[in-house]
């Protein structure tokens, strides 16, 4: 019988990811990045703080918990969770430093970062791919989507590593071509491929669960998977074509990506309509707002392709801050509360009164902070369209306040501070580190 364990290191991955989010927003406040400045070293530093340190670290950490649930089997090689986390965190920090400092420092920081990130992704794939790639779990679309996303990590890393090497002074042919005029391919593979497809896969499992909707892997979802698979294949193939001096078919890739997003949106609407929980909770309401950001990004895509410049920047920002970050921030509170409840209260069910999962968090606080985040994301998107660096700095204030506020709320969830004192056990597990001898269960004799 399959069962699911709590992942020992997932909360540590979350904590590291939140650190990078806060760091990125502080860098923005101090003038890094912004409209017309993303191609500067400090701009690259911020973008990678967000895409790698925040979003990728968050997604991989969540998958360590989520993949075993999806595949109904224990995580393969789970002992690699900590080394992978250390490699990803130090790799991202090294990359950010490499972008921030030019000259001799970058010459060894950037290749070092590429190596560390290669190790991090490699270890993550060793844990996640064998867990998901079993015939029983491969019958449904969600593990297939996540495997597709994980496969694209390799291409994101290859494109990024060759560019990092070229920037550091070691010329690599593919890196030169990407840096010359095909940098968007790296962004498309990372943002549109790895992160967005993984988000699709996770949401098909989480949304029916939180909305109490039937789990139905129907034609719409399978069609979306097919189109996404085709787009992913073309995206990955485009990188290979570029390596052999052929022009990648970017318009076709854009068209298929747009179709995949539309099919995903239709599937999400179907799940929403079929829900039994008529009043959606905060995490789901803000996940819906994240999807509106996704549609906004899709609407801007033609302008981003034809006009480039401000519209391309606005599209990327809206997808990073609006779509992926809002979705992640909306779900993290619910996931952490759920994990905390399972860890602390599951052993007491049927023996003493236990609180509801919802009691562990403050819905009002989360709701306010998530609205604040979305407000900042809209402001940031507008600042790119009108190319206003000062408005962008202003937008970073609500974004940072919301992120810090949500960190405090997560800490309150882990410390059970939203519960009355008499409901809190005398000893609580560590906030984000695994408890020594943490799970002494299933002693069945």
């Amino acid at each position, binding site marked *: *019988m*399959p*069962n*699911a*364990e709590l992942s020992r290191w997932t909360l540590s991955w979350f904590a590291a990811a939140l650190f990078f989010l806060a760091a990125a927003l502080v860098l923005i406040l101090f003038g890094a990045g912004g409209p017309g400045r993303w191609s500067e070293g400090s701009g690259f530093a911020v973008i990678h703080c967000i895409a790698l340190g925040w979003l990728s670290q968050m997604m991989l950490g969540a998958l360590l918990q989520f993949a075993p*649930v999806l*595949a*109904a*089997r*224990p*995580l*393969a090689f*789970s002992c690699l969770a900590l080394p992978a986390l250390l490699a990803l965190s130090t790799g991202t920090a090294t990359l950010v430093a490499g972008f921030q400092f030019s000259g001799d420092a970058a010459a060894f920081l950037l290749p070092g970062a590429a190596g560390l990130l290669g190790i991090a992704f490699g270890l993550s794939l060793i844990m996640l791919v064998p867990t998901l790639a*079993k*015939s*029983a*779990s491969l019958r449904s679309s969600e593990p297939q989507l996540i495997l597709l996303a994980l496969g694209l990590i390799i291409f994101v890393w290859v494109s990024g590593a060759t560019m990092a090497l070229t920037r550091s002074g070691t010329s690599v042919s593919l890196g030169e071509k990407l840096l010359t005029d095909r940098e968007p391919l790296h962004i498309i593979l990372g943002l549109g491929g790895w992160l967005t497809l993984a988000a699709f896969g996770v949401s098909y499992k989480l949304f029916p*669960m*939180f909305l*109490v909707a*039937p*789990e*139905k892997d129907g034609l719409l979802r399978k069609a979306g998977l097919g189109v996404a698979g085709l787009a992913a294949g073309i995206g990955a193939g485009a990188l290979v074509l570029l390596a052999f001096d052929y022009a990648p078919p970017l318009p076709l890739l854009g068209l298929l990506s747009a179709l995949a997003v539309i099919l995903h949106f239709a599937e999400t609407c179907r799940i929403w309509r079929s829900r*039994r*929980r008529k009043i959606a909770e905060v995490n789901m309401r803000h996940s819906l707002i994240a999807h509106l950001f996704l549609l906004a990004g899709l609407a801007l895509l033609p302008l981003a392709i034809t006009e480039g410049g401000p519209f391309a920047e606005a599209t990327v920002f809206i997808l990073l801050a609006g779509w992926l970050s809002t979705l992640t921030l909306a779900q993290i509170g619910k996931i952490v509360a*759920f994990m905390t*409840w*399972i860890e602390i209260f*599951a*052993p007491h*069910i*049927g*023996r003493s009164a*236990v609180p509801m*999962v919802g009691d562990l968090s403050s819905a009002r606080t989360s709701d306010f902070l998530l609205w604040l985040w979305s407000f900042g994301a809209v402001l940031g998107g507008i600042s790119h369209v009108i190319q206003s660096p000062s408005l962008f700095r202003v937008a970073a204030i609500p974004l940072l306040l919301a992120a810090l506020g949500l960190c405090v709320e997560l800490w309150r969830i882990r410390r059970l501070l939203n519960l009355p004192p008499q409901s809190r056990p005398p000893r609580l597990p560590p906030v984000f580190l695994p408890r*020594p*001898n943490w*799970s*002494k*269960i*299933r*002693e*069945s*004799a």
Partner: protein
Amino acid sequence: MNLPEPLTLDVCPQLARGEEPFATIMAAADRLAPGQPLRLLVPFRPAPLFNVMAKRGFHAKENRRDDGIWEVLFIPQTPVEPAAAATGAATDAVFWPDPVRQIDLCGLPPPEPMSRVLETISKLEIGEVLFALLDREPLFLFPELAKRGHEWAGNLSEKGDVYRLLVRAGGQE
């Protein structure tokens, strides 16, 4: 028929360190060559594991050694798909008595179904059976049932929209 040499897994040191061996045992079961048995050394009789392994197509031969260690040989009955999911009831569930309680937990948000099953089963006598209907496979419930010494068997309906779960009350830890 000659069986291949069994893969031996001693989880006594892991248990002595206070670590949970379930994932290690499942990983070892995944590594087995076709037809290869798993020889497990454990300081106690791992009753619920027999059910888990039965569903993966293994039958168990147990032996308590003089030194107190239980030596359990899990022998594959037929070549099975290693990732076999929870389809079909436990091999011995057909011999369980009729359920004394039936609860419909469909439409409840997680982890409410888990709470309700644990609350209900805690009120049953040892050996009594609970039948529950759920929206989805309650993956976080199973470790808690095992910890409390209960046995369970479950499968998805043909349409895949309802999970049917039988739980037989065991000794409370």
